[in-house]
């Protein structure tokens, strides 16, 4: 299992500790401490996953996250000391796939990293349709009338999970388990934000979603295909 992880954190002690833990789990960590240099380091190391501290000198984590997301769909896990909704949502909206609140246990961190990396190991040829979208699961592409829509791997997974069972209403907890791979319910805000982001990409009118429909009081389901 490949596991190059780019750690973007200004706290050297924490970065070193992260390095120890990650190496212990068989990952190959590389480090950058400055937000301004993060993007360059990202291009250089081409990591499979980015661990990104939200508070950084120079460019802050949100900005770095946006820049990385602009050129790659690589999984980004945010490290944040703030668990306030606003901070979390801002981080997720800037493109992070997941977040983990400090202080975290090493096992929890590793579990989340593995969950994010795991998905790339299961390609199965499959064609799905939802609304006017055509999803090629193996080819990892979504098309509307021949036009392909760029989605991050996580958004893609979310869409596929919904599209595979269009008759089923998914609770946020179920989605967390299926898409993020968390056995124990983490934070349903993750789901909310990512559904918003997915909608902003695949819906014709994100205000009136037709692909990913909210079922009030329960969760989400795929729109009629």
């Amino acid at each position, binding site marked *: 299992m490949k596991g190059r992880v780019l750690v973007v954190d200004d706290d050297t002690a924490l970065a070193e500790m992260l390095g120890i*833990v990650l190496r212990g789990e068989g990952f190959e960590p590389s480090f950058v401490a400055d937000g301004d240099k993060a993007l360059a380091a990202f291009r250089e190391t081409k990591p499979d996953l980015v661990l990104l501290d939200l508070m950084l000198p120079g460019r802050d984590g949100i900005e770095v996250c946006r820049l990385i997301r602009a050129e790659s769909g690589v999984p980004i896990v945010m490290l944040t000391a703030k668990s*306030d909704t606003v901070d979390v949502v801002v981080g997720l909206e800037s493109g992070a796939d997941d977040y983990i609140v*400090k*202080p975290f246990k*090493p096992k929890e961190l590793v579990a989340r990293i593995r969950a994010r990396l795991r998905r790339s190991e299961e390609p199965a040829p499959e064609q799905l349709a939802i609304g006017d979208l055509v999803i090629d699961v193996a080819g990892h592409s979504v098309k509307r009338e021949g036009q392909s829509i760029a989605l991050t791997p996580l958004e893609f997974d979310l869409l596929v999970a919904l599209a595979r069972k269009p008759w089923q209403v998914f609770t946020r907890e179920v989605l967390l388990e299926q898409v993020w791979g968390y056995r124990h319910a983490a934070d349903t805000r993750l789901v909310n934000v990512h559904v918003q982001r997915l909608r902003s990409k695949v819906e014709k009118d994100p205000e009136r979603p037709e692909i990913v429909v909210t079922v009030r009081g*329960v969760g989400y389901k795929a729109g009629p295909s």
Partner: protein
Amino acid sequence: MSRDSAASAPGESGVRSGRPVGRKVTGSRWGRVLEGGLLQGGVQGSPVLRLFMRWVRRPLLPVMRLWRRNIQLKIVVTTLLMSLGVVLLLGFVVIGQVRNGLLDAKVKASQSQATGGFSVAKQKADAAVTANGDDGSSADGRPSKNVSQWMNDLVVSLSSGGQGAFDVVTLSSTVAGNGGAGRGPRSSGDVDPTVSIPEDLRARVDSNTMAAQSYTRVVYKDGKESQAALVIGKQVLDPNGDAYQLYYLFPLTQEEKSLSLVKGTLATAGLFVVVLLGAIAWLVVRQVVTPVRMAAGIAERLSAGRLQERMKVTGEDDIARLGEAFNKMAQNLQLKIQQLEDLSRMQRRFVSDVSHELRTPLTTVRMAADVIHDARVDFDPVTARSAELLADQLDRFETLLADLLEISRFDAGAAALEAEAIDLREVVRRVVSGAEPLAERKGSQIRVVGDQQPVVAEADARRVERVLRNLVVNAVEHGDGKEVVVKLATAGGAVAIAVRDYGVGLKPGEATRVFSRFWRADPARARTTGGTGLGLSIALEDARLHGGWLQAWGEPGGGSQFRLTLPRTADEPLRGSPIPLEPMDSRRNRGLNDAGLPSGGGDKLATVPMQGAGGKAAPPMQRTSVVPRMAGASPTADPTALPGNGARVVPRPSGPVRRPDDMPAAGAERSMQERGRDGGGPEELGQAEPEELGQGEAFRGR
């Protein structure tokens, strides 16, 4: 006037909130006015009358409300009524003066005319006497005929002087013995002589020889309309020396016309004056009321949070001063609020920064400790144990830090509710499955009751889950390995979840104290599980944030029940809870049922859950000695005292009950201190109050 309206403005703007009081006062005043004349004293006795009054008053109610609420209407109507009164008074005075003036002139002119006429009549009579001197005295039949003719001539000649200006009437004297002799009534101008001359005037004319006058109505024989007139009469002698009555009738047509003209003019002028005064009052009041209303409206908007609203100020008059003062107030208010907001933001910022600064090193420590912990098998026993302790205490430290931050977020008002419709059964299921491992270890079983139907409420799932996890874990931990029951219910606008355990329970008075920060049930007892002492405080804050209640009940040795009540839709005030705070299987309820006593209190609880909290507090029936003393206090559970906090609401017992002998005074003092420390929202106050009650309960418990 400006003071008047200024004073009424707050009342007007506050009508919504203050309505009940205001209505009562004015309403009763109106009622008194209405009933005062009609049924003084009879109101109490007769329900029929009261019903009738209500029936009469009902259609008036909107008018009365308008009257109460609209100062402009009040002032305009008052002005109208008062000016109407003044105009009427003035009108009467003026008309009276004019009438007197007109009549005086007429009377003088008429009197001289009549005096002239009377002397002419006398002269004619004298002339006739001398002309008939030779034969007049001898014959008895002739003279009467002559006199009759003479009279006719006299009337004609007299009345010819003033055609239309007056009429002349002769009547025979009514004095006895003077009658007959063919002297019937005569009149000029078709006047009906007998009807037109009043009887009392005739009597007066007969009684002396002076001229007498009176007012009358002239009646005409030819059907002409009767007229008011002045009549002057005198007894005159005819040529025969017999007395007859000669009357001059002066119709007051002209004067009446003038008077009615004056009346008409006055009425028109008065009407105009009244209407114009009303209009002026309306305009003037509007000038004052408009700014006041504007101020009221802006004050309302200010209080609704639109702090940038200001009054428009023009000129330098009192109204402008009001506006300036108002604006200054708004400005200061805005400034203060902004300062507070800044402060709160800074506080939040500080908390967030501290959190970040603390958490980053803590994360490193935590990870290091875990690495060491994982490698402990390679260490010698002492180091290995140290690694275990380090990891365990780090866990505790972490939770404590997290809880502290959460509490400080609440204190800073930074906690935000993310409410959406959720099925609480899901939350309960998650919490219960999360608590299963602990329950297994403790050997207790968690049973969920009332989850057949969806229990949906607008709530923040994360917070509700946190509250429930806390309650369930607490119940399992303090449950002595006995069953833990989680009960769900929904009714009215509220949903409730109660967690019941059968463990050590709560000592009297502890039911409120469990929610205090860092409070411990028994300091002497070893802390087996690593709670922070903040769990229930946070849970209480979470419940409050929802506008809900978190309350506790417990009896020593009989277990406890914690009840979370949430409004079904956010922003809806709670009025009661679907689950009674004291469970049906409490020792007291069972005792009641066994004793077969009328379970008045219990029934009340079941039907009115909110009162239930109060009613439940009614003392156990077996302790009959306390019952009579409590009886006075228990039925008056004040619903408004029901706070959204952890306190069970108990009607405040009267003095002797509250300060029992075996209750150390220190307890009361401490509760005072706690109250002081908690600081002042009304909720805190509410919390403190039941605390005292808790002490009353303590007494009963012993």
